[in-house]
């Protein structure tokens, strides 16, 4: 099916998210929509899927104009969507999830046999290896994503929209997904592939449309240079990689021994973890989301309840301390979920910049705040970190995600630190600002501060780290040098130990897409 979008415009108040966008997706092509977070990709797809009504423009399927008042209409017309966050019922089986909303019936009864048969048929056709009777919550993330794809295909989707599908996958699962995408294309399905990762676009797309600030800024061929795509995406030239000078590493500053964290349900989220970080060293913690990295950083910050083991910062034991005491010991922290854990959206930029220091000199005393000093501090930080805001008194919730992240980073970096911990330090930040924030992290390291970076983006980990610890199911599977190859890291993220991963890579059997994996580049 041929999909055409003509002059699609979508406004939210005075903000134009999509500005007369034209897009043509030919039958049987993988069309990649490339753009930074907040560029308007998801808005455009939500318009296509009937979740938003456009303020202007029209949608044509095979040359005929259509209009959707909801996802139901879009699905009936043959458009399927796999959202970034899966829309599955965790306690249902695969067949039940696929049937949900379109349940086959026999009289008044559900006809689960038909539903099962359908899942099996699609699964076999594309080699998905999905059992229709598995309960969804027991499946790995990559398999859950395939269930989403089966769901779309079972409703005869001829245009499949994949919204940032690789964000939750290991590198190996990403490779598998790309194989699936190519297979679907060869069977005639049109695919719209939304992403901000240049490497993936080049590996799989037939055509690339770059979108920036709600407008189409250009189309490119998959053979285009990465730097060219990055420049189109950001709107100016960016350094994709820069050399960080070797910093002389000093004494061991942080030593974690036998750290175990148990959550409320009694599960060991961090399992007997030990590592050291030296002064002037960046330790990267890699891993697929949800393998204990969050709990590890929270344990250091005194935010987890059931913690055993030892975390020594210099001569201070941090286990058993309150969050305030840990902060007072000079630990700077950037949590991974800024809206939930780091910012108070109705508070002003200035207030958020002193959230953890409001009662300390020079910003306040035990009794009252020093508003002029807080304001001055905010102006300096906004200047230094290039935070785009209409004023330091604006609520932080009115800033774009990238600028909110800069507020969090500048708050953590603006004081004397004995340890800096950042989880997903550049999530949702545009490519240009990533470079700036990375330089700031490296500057902190070069001053001798020990740094712990948690990231699910392999590229970010490789770019920053002096050493890399890979976490898998709460354990550290190994600590490898910062220049370890992507393949080895990818296998470790899937549960291989360092030695096993190296042996596997040496035998050369694993990776379907050598060219893809060999490139070290930005996310």
């Amino acid at each position, binding site marked *: 099916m041929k999909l055409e979008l003509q002059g699609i415009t979508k406004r939210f108040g005075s*903000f134009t998210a999509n500005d007369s966008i034209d897009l043509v997706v030919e039958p049987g092509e993988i069309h990649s929509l490339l753009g930074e977070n907040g560029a308007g990709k998801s808005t455009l797809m939500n318009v296509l899927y009937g979740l938003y009504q456009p303020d202007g423009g029209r949608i044509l399927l095979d040359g005929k104009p259509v209009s959707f008042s909801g996802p139901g209409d879009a699905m009936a017309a043959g458009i399927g969507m796999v959202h970034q966050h899966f829309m599955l019922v965790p306690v249902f089986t695969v067949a039940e999830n696929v049937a949900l909303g379109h349940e086959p019936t026999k009289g008044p009864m559900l006809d689960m046999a038909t539903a099962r048969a359908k899942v099996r048929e699609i699964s076999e056709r594309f080699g998905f290896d999905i059992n229709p009777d598995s309960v969804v919550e027991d499946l790995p993330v990559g398999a859950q994503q395939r269930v989403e794809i089966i769901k779309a295909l079972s409703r005869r989707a001829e245009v499949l929209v994949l919204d940032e599908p690789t964000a939750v996958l290991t590198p190996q699962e990403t490779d598998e997904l790309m194989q699936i995408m190519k297979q679907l294309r060869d069977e005639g399905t049109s695919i719209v592939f939304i992403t901000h990762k240049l490497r993936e676009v080049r590996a799989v797309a037939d055509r690339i449309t770059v979108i920036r600030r709600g407008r189409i800024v250009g189309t490119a061929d998959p053979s285009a240079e990465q730097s060219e795509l990055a420049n189109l995406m950001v709107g100016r030239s960016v350094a994709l990689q820069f050399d960080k000078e070797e910093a002389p590493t000093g004494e061991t500053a942080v030593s974690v021994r036998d750290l175990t964290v148990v959550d409320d349900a009694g599960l060991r989220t961090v399992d007997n973890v030990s590592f050291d970080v030296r002064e002037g060293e960046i330790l990267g913690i890699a891993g697929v989301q949800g393998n204990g990295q969050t709990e590890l950083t929270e344990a250091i910050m005194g*935010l987890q309840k059931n913690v055993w083991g030892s975390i020594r910062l210099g001569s201070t034991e941090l286990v058993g301390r309150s969050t305030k005491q*840990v*902060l007072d010991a000079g630990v700077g922290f950037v949590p991974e979920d800024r809206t939930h854990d780091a910012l108070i959206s109705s508070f002003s930029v200035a207030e958020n910049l002193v959230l953890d220091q409001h009662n300390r000199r020079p910003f306040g005393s035990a009794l009252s*705040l020093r508003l002029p000093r807080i304001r001055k501090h905010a102006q300096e930080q906004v200047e230094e970190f290039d935070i785009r*805001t209409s004023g330091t008194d604006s609520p932080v919730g009115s800033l774009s995600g990238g600028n909110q992240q800069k507020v969090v980073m500048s708050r953590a970096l603006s004081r004397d630190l004995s340890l800096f911990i950042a989880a997903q330090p550049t999530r949702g930040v545009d490519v240009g600002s990533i470079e700036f924030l990375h330089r700031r992290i490296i500057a902190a390291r070069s001053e001798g501060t020990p740094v712990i970076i948690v990231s699910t983006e392999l590229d970010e980990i490789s770019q920053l780290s002096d050493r890399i610890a890979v976490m898998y199911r709460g354990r550290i599977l190994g600590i490898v040098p910062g220049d370890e190859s992507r393949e080895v890291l990818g296998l470790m993220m899937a549960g291989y130990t360092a030695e096993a991963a190296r042996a596997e890579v040496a035998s050369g059997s694993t990776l379907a897409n050598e060219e893809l994996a060999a490139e070290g580049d930005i996310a």
Partner: protein
Amino acid sequence: MSAPTAENENTPTLAARIGRSEIPVVIMAFVFAFLISAVLILISNEDVRQSATYLFARPSDFFRASWDAIVSAYDALFRGAVYDYRARTSTQAWNRLIETLTVATPLIIAALGMAVGFRAGLFNIGGTGQLIVGSAAAAWVGFGLSLPPVIHLIAALAAGIAAGGLWGGIAGFLKARFDANEVITTIMLNWIAVNLLAWLLTTAAFRAPNVLTPQSPQVKATAMLPRLLGDQFRLHLGFVIMLLAALFLWWLMSRSTLGFRFRAVGENPRAAQVAGISVGTSSFLVMLIAGGLVGLGGAVNVLGTEHSLNDGIAGSIGFDAITVALLGRSGPVGIILAGILFAGLSTGGRYMEGQGVPIDLVAVIQALVVLFIAAPPLVRRMSGLNLLTRPRRTAAAKEA
């Protein structure tokens, strides 16, 4: 999706700004409440109902009766709450406004206390209980102790604050230590306080001798809040205390470190926790301060207005304070205005009753005003104010 940045946010037109502002919403809320109330007044009015039976024979009777009913009811409301132009002396005429302010005083102080909780994300329903223990403690110091003039008054007020703070603090402690829901604990503490007072009034320490109803002795003159405008007006020093309390709320919430923590915990407890703020300690202190303010309201009520304790001392102030705090958007100025409005509806309501409007209907009118003010989008839609904020398509398209 990224939010609008400074560059693409165009300045709103004057019409849009009027449409968005709060003042027209409040005005229109009154208009709608009075319109609907007018219908209710008509239905309940004897003359109107009688003339309606021969509406088609002599419609003029019906319309005259309707007009008279509505005008006399709202006229009474105005005279009762603001200025009684029919009174013989100007003192009596102005007395109504002064009375409204007197009634408003404890209500506003209690509402300021409620606002502390709301701003910190705690739904304190314990106004009644905190008010009762505050009144009881202040009254006991007032009639039970003999102290020199100024000191006696200060001691009585302090006792009210301490008792209210203790009562709120219990709920705060349960919240902080055991994560007990403050809605439930404060409601239960209300019942405990109500029955504690009923029991106290049977004991020798509290029961006034030689009276039939359960009532305490009068507080001594040294502990009474002095009247501000001479003996013909009931307005007392509590009015000034109320203004100081409002100033305190402003300082607490926008200038103090404690208030900064309260607001942070109220808006996003998780982010506050990550920033090293103890959510439990904050909850406890919030309830302590909120209870203290409400207790002060109870003390002011008993030492300034009532002068003795009886089992109905809290009246509906505890619950009205919640409404006033919400109506005033938990800000000091808003609460003062909302409190005066509420008191005015109640003092004016007494006059309306004299004009044949049933007392129940007065309460309905009060409720309607509050209901409309509490639902700005409803008022905007009903009055067409929302049309003003709608962006003009052509202009927006051109700018883009």
